[in-house]
């Protein structure tokens, strides 16, 4: 992460790191959680592993943002028109996976799949959205960005 990067770019690096670490962490909690041993995949208790992953990500995000805020000067914490434009572009890009996850969940519900699969399709969509959105944001900051995109 470049030391002189925009605060929003640093935020994107934090989001990317948390998403990349968060999903494997969820899988570890899922497969090693209480009552997981010996059960078929679709019957694994997934609710608490998901809740802990989300709470852990939010907590880690707050701590990491606070740490970076302390170690950067106030000027570099300012947002301007380019930050807002890139933010909107990254959100739009990431939303593709939220929609894909929702459609996947909808299709699985129509097929009367187990709640495990429906929840996991939507959950995976969130993580893919965070990863794609963060990569889009970092790419826009590092390379060229046009307001026409």
């Amino acid at each position, binding site marked *: 992460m470049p030391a002189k990067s925009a605060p929003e770019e640093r935020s994107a690096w934090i989001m990317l790191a948390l998403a990349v670490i968060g999903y494997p962490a969820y899988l570890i909690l899922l497969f090693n959680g209480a009552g997981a041993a010996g059960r078929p995949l679709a019957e694994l208790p997934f609710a608490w592993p998901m809740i802990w992953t989300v709470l852990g990500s939010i907590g880690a995000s707050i701590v990491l943002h606070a740490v970076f805020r302390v170690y950067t000067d106030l000027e*570099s914490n300012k947002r301007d028109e380019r930050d807002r434009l890139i933010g909107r572009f990254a959100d739009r890009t990431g939303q593709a996976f939220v929609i894909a996850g929702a459609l996947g969940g909808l299709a699985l519900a129509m097929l009367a799949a187990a709640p495990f699969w429906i929840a996991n399709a939507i959950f995976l969509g969130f993580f893919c959205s965070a990863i794609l959105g963060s990569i889009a944001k970092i790419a826009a900051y590092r390379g*060229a960005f046009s307001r026409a995109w």
Partner: protein
Amino acid sequence: MVRPTAVTNSIRALREAAGLTQAELAGRIDVTRQTLIAVEQGRYSPSLETAFRIARALGVRLDEVFQYPEA
């Protein structure tokens, strides 16, 4: 690197002629230093308002700062 715009600019030369650092000019036009660097390098086209503020801060006309090639 793909340039997002056909617009070119003379900000760096004008800024240096005015004896301003990137941080000073960025402060005067109310954008971050990262954004000013992106504009100078042609990686970002600023809004019309910001373009006017840049020209005003450098004490020149808008078309002396930004150029758009003839079709």
